[in-house]
């Protein structure tokens, strides 16, 4: 076991898979000699050579096309989109192409591609770097969307994503890259895609969260405990497909739910998840399911992040509403 930050765990996962499978290729803008703008691919080109870890021209759509084409030749591409706000340039390659490849070829071809991209607020990035756009991809059949919140899960989920024979979009929250360290095994291990994790057990209310909001929810749960409210915190870890089994088990125990996401209220995945939960568990609910989200504006100018991004105080407020309904 080693103490690693999330970014170190991500690098380690790529190193493990580059070693484990000669078909794994890592590429994107500045991921080669530079080691990535966040150092996520640091040292990988030196260790595995330019044939395996390489820079691309500055063109996201082209990067998506390269990934699809390389998959046709039996490679296992792990392309990087420098910031997920730039996904609009490559929406066709992800949602219009790789997500559909297995289906459109009747199973003749598949796209074992893992698209890595940083996102997320709280670090004062310039425009279109921090936007939470997971909701866009989560609506596309054929692609899975994974968002880890700890170093341990980042490594295990990224190894699973790379080994998955269908496309996975792997979103890395920038604020979580170096904000804390966690225990990470040195060898290869996997965390199953499509499985949520109960981060804290509780009996009065279920907090459903992912990404940085997992940590805000845990902080809120601590405060709520002081008031005698026991909150269960579930980290979705995969936002498409969602693990309803784990969610429903918790809902049937607590009978109250608050959904927490960093994305705007009209975005993210809250709407879809809440709809499923009420269809399957309405008779177990003591109160409506409420949401903690960002307001429905364009992502905040960086100086306004503090007032705009949802935080643990918003969560405490919402939980109290649900408890006192």
């Amino acid at each position: 076991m080693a103490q690693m930050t999330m970014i170190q765990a991500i690098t380690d996962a790529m190193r493990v898979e580059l070693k484990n499978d000669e078909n794994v290729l890592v590429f994107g803008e500045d991921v080669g000699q530079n080691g990535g703008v966040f150092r996520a691919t640091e040292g990988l080109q030196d260790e595995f050579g330019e044939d395996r870890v390489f820079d691309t021209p500055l063109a996201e759509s082209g990067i998506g096309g390269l990934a699809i084409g390389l998959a046709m030749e039996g490679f296992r591409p792990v392309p990087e989109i420098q910031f997920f706000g730039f996904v609009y340039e490559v929406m066709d390659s992800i949602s219009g192409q790789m997500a559909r490849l297995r289906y459109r070829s009747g199973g003749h071809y598949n796209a074992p591609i893992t698209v890595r991209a940083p996102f997320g607020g709280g670090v004062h990035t310039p425009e279109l770097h921090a936007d939470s756009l997971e909701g866009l991809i989560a609506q596309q059949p054929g692609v899975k969307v994974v968002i880890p919140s700890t170093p341990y899960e980042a490594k295990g989920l990224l190894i699973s994503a790379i080994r998955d024979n269908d496309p996975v979009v792997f979103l890395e929250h920038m604020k979580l890259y170096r904000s804390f360290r966690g225990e990470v095994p040195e060898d290869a291990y996997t965390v199953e895609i499509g499985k949520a994790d109960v981060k804290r057990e509780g009996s009065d209310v279920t907090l459903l969260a992912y990404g940085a909001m997992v940590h805000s929810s845990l902080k809120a749960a601590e405060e709520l405990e002081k008031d005698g409210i026991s909150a269960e915190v579930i980290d979705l870890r995969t936002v498409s497909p969602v693990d309803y089994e784990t969610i429903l088990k918790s809902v049937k125990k607590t009978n109250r739910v608050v959904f927490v996401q960093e994305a705007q209220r009209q975005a993210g995945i809250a709407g879809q998840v809440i709809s499923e939960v009420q269809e399957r568990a309405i008779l177990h609910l003591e109160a409506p399911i409420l949401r903690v989200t960002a307001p429905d504006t364009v992502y905040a100018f960086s100086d306004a992040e503090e007032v705009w991004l949802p935080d643990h105080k918003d969560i405490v407020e919402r939980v109290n509403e649900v408890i006192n309904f």
Partner: protein
Amino acid sequence: MKQVLENIENQFEMFQVLDENGKVVNKNDLPDLSDDELKELMRRMVYTRILDQRSIALNRQGRLGFYAPTAGQEASQLGSQFALEQDDFILPGYRDVPQLIWQGLPLYQAFLFSKGHFHGNQYPDEVRALSPQIIIGAQYVQTAGVALGLKKRGKKNVAITYTGDGGTSQGDFYEGINNAGAYKAPAIFVVQNNRFAISVPVEKQTNAKTLAQKAVAAGIEGIQVDGMDVLAVYAATKFARERAVAGEGPTLIETLTYRFGPHTMSGDDPTRYRTEELDKEWEQKDPLVRFRKYLEGKKLWSEEDENKVIEEAKEDIKKAIKQAEQQPKQKVTDLINHMYEELPTHLQEQKEIYEAKESK
């Protein structure tokens, strides 16, 4: 200040081997094809012309679905495909079904693609190709990737792709040729300039005099070819293929061609945007007429040969449409099964629901 536009345009003179009367105008570049190969080329062009006529008729009868006519483009489509090896990889656009057929895609599957059935896209292993791409330009960025893959695997093969004149305005068109250039990947990019993108003439796509000169932006080789001249298209593709497998990188080939029919069979009416004079002018350049004259001059082709091909094509088409119509109907559970290697829970649930419906 230096003005360079004229200098650049002068670099892209049209490459031609046969003129409109089937005379060799360029002996040096006459490709080295045996008599049998020449006859096979003609056979394929005649067959494909009949396939186009029959496909239009079958579409009108409602026995085919989506269909983009190909008449006029036989030299461009088949001359380029004839220069390929079996292990080369084709990334076609939606009008490029003939190349797939001559690469080995069974005709009934091409018809199933038209009708909208997944089995039409389940290619035999020896046909290394993706199914016709509907998103114009996407095949270009993907081709750069396939070509890079071939290079990494050390294969002596190429990836070839096709788009139209309108497609050269897309971002993916530029990104595709630029990426392939940056990696010196073995790709052949063909632009079939049939002068119209639905109703929009090529002059409204760009101020560039040729489309071949767009290769300059990627720093790669560009050739403008008479796309009604099957020997010129073959020679240009062969040249590009040899460069590519020798590690010299990609080539952009513009074929000057014409579609005699509408854009697609989905309600397009070319009389709204094309004049009769223009149609007539291009009919003079019909690739079949010109090549037929050339072969007749060499005593390699007769009316009898031609009629034999026509009958053979009609017979094959009849059988293929029947086979397509006998294909079992698609079920929702089939569609669900082709989504992922392992079905996620929500799709397992939906599969059970549809299984119950389907067993009723």
